[in-house]
């Protein structure tokens, strides 16, 4: 009897703990979302409402017309097109070459594997910032590719970054080798194994790599600024950095531009989310 009540009290204890955790999570997520809401709500207001004290939590008239006005100063679609011109080939190149590299490290035997792999892991610890200037010299003075998208795209066709190769390798090593062996017996070559067996079974990891590359390029204001000089080639990131300077106090329009720039990332994330979490969870465990 006494045992049972002890058990019950423990269950009760656990239940209150879980409720407290839920309340804390809800509060924390509201706090995390608050900046995004505040930016969005500001994009729908007039200046008078923006500069009112105390500020109101909801916009009064939901002025979606702000967006059409902001588009006059901020050619979002042009910038989006330019950004996509960089992102689509880069993400493709990065995921394909990272998958190839990861496959070689995870499954194939060859001379110099250990050495190459440690070079690869070592470069993960090397900050990109350090190699910025030599690369700039190489692309602009060696290949004369200043003010083109090539210096921003081509590096992604060279392995897509050590971290992503590593991630794919870790993921492939969780897949049972029997699958490859069965295919080998059926006469499939190593390349066929990669395309027909490995790639379909590591879909989540490939999507993680694609999303990580997407975010990385999206955020890479510095490299875009140093390689791109003319307005017609501006990306969203450069466009935003110029926009603030030209519209000092028009906060509503600036917030419109901000919200528009949020959208593609959110959409891509929502589409890939199911695979994405699965992929991070599976690869995160192996870290």
């Amino acid at each position: 009897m006494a045992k049972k009540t002890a058990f019950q009290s423990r269950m009760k204890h656990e239940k209150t703990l879980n409720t407290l955790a839920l309340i804390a999570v809800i509060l924390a997520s509201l706090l995390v979302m608050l900046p995004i809401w505040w930016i969005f709500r500001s994009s729908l207001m007039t200046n008078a409402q923006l500069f009112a004290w105390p500020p109101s939590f909801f916009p009064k008239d939901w002025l979606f017309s702000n967006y059409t006005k902001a588009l006059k100063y901020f050619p979002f679609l042009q910038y989006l097109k330019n950004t996509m011109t960089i992102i689509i080939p880069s993400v493709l190149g990065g995921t394909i070459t990272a998958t190839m590299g990861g496959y070689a490290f995870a499954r194939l035997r060859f001379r110099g594997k250990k050495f190459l792999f440690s070079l690869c892991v070592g470069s993960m610890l090397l900050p990109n910032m350090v190699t910025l200037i030599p690369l700039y010299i190489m692309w602009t003075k060696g290949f004369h590719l200043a003010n083109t998208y090539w210096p921003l795209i081509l590096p992604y066709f060279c392995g897509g970054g050590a971290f992503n190769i590593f991630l794919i390798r870790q993921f492939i090593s969780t897949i049972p080798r029997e699958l490859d062996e069965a295919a080998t017996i059926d006469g499939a070559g190593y390349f066929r194994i990669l395309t027909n067996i490995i790639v379909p079974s590591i879909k989540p990891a490939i999507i993680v790599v694609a999303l990580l590359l997407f975010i990385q390029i999206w955020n890479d204001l510095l490299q875009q600024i140093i390689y791109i000089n003319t307005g017609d080639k501006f990306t969203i990131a450069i466009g935003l950095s110029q926009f603030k300077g030209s519209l000092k106090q028009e906060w509503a329009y600036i917030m419109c531009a901000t919200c528009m720039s949020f959208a593609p990332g959110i959409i891509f994330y929502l589409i890939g989310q199911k695979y994405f979490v699965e992929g991070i969870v599976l690869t995160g465990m192996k870290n």
Partner: protein
Amino acid sequence: MEIDVRKKKADHRLLDGERKTAYLCLIPSCIGLIFLTYVPLITVLILSFFNWKGVGTLQWVGLTNYVRLFTKDPYFIDAIKVTVYFSVLAVFGSILYSFAIALLLNQKIPARGFFRAIFYLPYVLPAMAVYLGWSWLYESNWGLFNYILSFLGIGKVKFIGSPTWVVPSLALIAVWLSGNLIVIFLAGLQNVPRVYHEAAEMDGASGWQRFRYITIPCMTPIIFYNLLMSLITNMQVVTPALALTQGGPGNSSRFISYVMYTYAFKDAKLSYACAISFIFFLIIAVFTIILFVTSGRWVFYQGGND
């Protein structure tokens, strides 16, 4: 005998195919590693011994660039301090925040996937837009944060316009952006063997004791990994200076990367900027080595894994 030889030959051919595929698959990565990583690293070091402004001939100057950096440069020493200050705040803030959230999400709560998505969301937003958006939240008269402070009876703070608050304010944005750490922590927490907890519970360990002596030790490899990656990312901080502060007010947000950027691309002092790059590389290497050396004392690897 003959069968043996033939088998060996077949093995050899198989291995050859394997080797060929491996090298083919690794061609892109090798080009990247050689020409985009290691050769540039050596080039940075070599160029830093010269005087070169992007045109004309290279002029050997030995260690002059380095001497100037540490004795005469108006920005460099302060930039190191600011960068380290920012990194410490951002790294510890992000680790504490994301570990706490991951612990909460690891409880039995409904709609866990939904909440995880919410905390991850800031990470997928483009950095430039994030800084622009937050600059309005930090606005010194009508911004959200001053509104919140007014509830607490605190007067207006200039945040990114104030030399004292600019770095903590930017670090807060970095913490907000660290949703990726939460996902990695959470995956780690779900991987802590349940048996340990059950055994400890049998022995009458309290919740706190279980957390302190089971969860934390099991999580140390992941804490280590997150610390390392977060450190390398945050030491390289440059976007907020490029996008918002231009290093100001004064020099209070002039990060090392930003100093390097202005010397290289505004003043065309390419070789001088290379010296900064190389010192920067050494600074990050020192931090990384310290982290690796001390990790022996606090990181526990469970035996038998892998």
